[in-house]
């Protein structure tokens, strides 16, 4: 009598379990295909020229040196600007604000900024800096990237400081350490690995950001270290070169894509190792 029901339930169970296995297979296959295409097309484009020559005119020899340098300079500067601000703000949320309404508002706003469309941040910095300076500049690119770094660092700093046991804070207070010193010498130090992980993840995040650079740092066909002038960057080069009809530009776009992906993946693996070693 019950056999029919049992059979149906077992069949449904089998079907859905197969479907979820298939979903996993589809996901993995799609992602393997992307990485495969990246490796196949990117390695062909990698040569010594890539690191020594500037982006070329269509059809001629060239590399990505200006874009590599630009990306490194702007990412580094953005992290340098964004990290202290993010760390201090995260410290306020974890140590001083905690349950105040101000901290509540800041947390809410910060989480919105964390996943706000990056192109909107580009528009903001365009209005804020490019319009006033009347030209594109690396400074504008740096500010745009820093605006992306800050929420990431705020979130990880707060989370990591909240993990620090209260007994440490109490111990510091009991020997008479003022709050500011106990935060800097005790809680920051206890949470150091976690905060560094957050900064690494922020670097990984901005090194692939394209949209906020399109109309802030703009791009530059020559190597430049002038922060007051437009500056090239890898993602912007991919954007321009992939949309072009020239074969040698396509090859360089793939090489740049491979470089970015390799950098991002190794940064996140490194961050993960650091995190797991801390635990």
């Amino acid at each position: 009598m019950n056999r029919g029901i049992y059979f149906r339930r077992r069949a449904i169970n089998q079907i859905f379990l197969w479907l979820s296995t298939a979903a996993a297979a589809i996901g993995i296959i799609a992602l393997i295909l992307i990485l495969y295409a990246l490796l196949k097309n990117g390695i062909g484009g990698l040569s010594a020229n890539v690191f020594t020559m500037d982006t070329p005119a269509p059809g001629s020899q060239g590399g990505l040196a200006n874009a590599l340098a630009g990306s490194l300079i702007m990412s580094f500067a953005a992290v340098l600007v964004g990290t202290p601000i993010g760390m201090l703000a995260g410290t306020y949320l974890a140590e001083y604000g905690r349950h105040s309404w101000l901290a509540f508002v800041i947390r809410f706003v910060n989480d919105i900024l964390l996943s706000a469309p990056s192109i909107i941040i580009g528009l903001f910095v365009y209005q804020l800096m490019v319009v006033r300076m009347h030209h594109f500049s690396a400074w504008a690119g740096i500010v745009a990237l820093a605006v992306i770094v800050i929420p990431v660092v705020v979130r990880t700093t707060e989370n990591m400081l909240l993990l620090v046991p209260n007994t440490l804070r109490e111990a510091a207070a009991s020997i008479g350490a003022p709050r500011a010193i106990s935060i800097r010498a005790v809680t920051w130090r206890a949470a150091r690995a976690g905060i560094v992980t957050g900064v690494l993840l922020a670097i990984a995040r901005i090194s692939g950001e394209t949209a906020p650079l399109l109309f802030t740092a703009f791009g530059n066909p020559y190597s430049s270290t002038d922060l007051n002038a437009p500056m090239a960057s890898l993602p912007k080069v991919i954007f321009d070169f992939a949309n072009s009809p020239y074969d040698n530009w396509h090859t360089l776009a793939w090489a740049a894509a491979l470089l970015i992906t390799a950098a991002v993946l190794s940064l996140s693996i490194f961050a993960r190792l650091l995190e797991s070693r801390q635990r």
Partner: protein
Amino acid sequence: MVDVVLDEAYEVDPARGAALKRFGRSDARFRFLTRAAALLVVIIFAGIMVSLVSGSIPAFKAFGWGFLTSSVWNPVTEKFGAFAAIYGTVVTSGLAMLLAVPLGIGIAIFLTELCPRALKRPMGIAIELLAGVPSIIYGIWGLFVFAPYFQANIQPGLIDFFANIPVLQDIFAGPPYGIGIFTSALILSIMILPFISAVTRDVFETVPPVLKEAAYGTGCTTWEVMWRIVLPFARPGVVGGAMLALGRALGETMAVTFVIGNAHHINESLFAAGTTISATIANEFTEALGDLYVSSLFAIGLILFGITFIVLASAQLMLKSLERRAGGKSS
């Protein structure tokens, strides 16, 4: 006795008082600094709002509410309307969610219930790593690899297959360009898939084992445990995670810009070229001439920010309620 000694010590040792004062001052300074940095986050947010609103005032003045409903986008006559871009944004993201949410939940079920133990960690890590791959990588792959393949091998078949079915023949109408709304949605769904799977798996793992064991004990099949016990328990987290993914999809620029075709009209067919708000801004901003053109781009940016704000805010509220519940349970 002790009190007297302490009092005397305070009066006798002025250095101590000075040190205390110094500590107090540096404490206040540090506190002020952290507070200022925290306020800067709010100021940035307010700055974004102000710059978008002030940038878009000329466009809204010129076109009024019609800006939202008109799908004309003509830089030559300086007539602009946001509807085609809004339509493209909503349709690509909606379709992407339709594909990615079931797949993502399927992957999470596979990871928590079916996956062999040896594979569990590597697969979990792989998914989390892939969630961090920059979107421009998906864009370039979509343009050079997926779109040509889709155009040559899949699209003609789909068009033929649906050719005689009433409504679907319009939705999947040719010609097969390779790029278009549908391709963009596919690329977007691949991009948000790792994110959805990672969040869903994390939420599934917060389900107390006792609940699952009790269900298995009454004779439930694995699927019944997932569908009737785990999923209802984890629903706020799954919905919140999915909304975060939707927020990303709506604002995603680079994965879409390459493959959408950048055409400002609304076509019944999903295979036709279209545009999204972010793709329009990315493609046209640096070439936009005239204040009204630039202002219109700011205006669609404001609309995009408004939409994503609503989505992200509700995602947060949902995840907060889950956090509170989980917190209450564990303590």
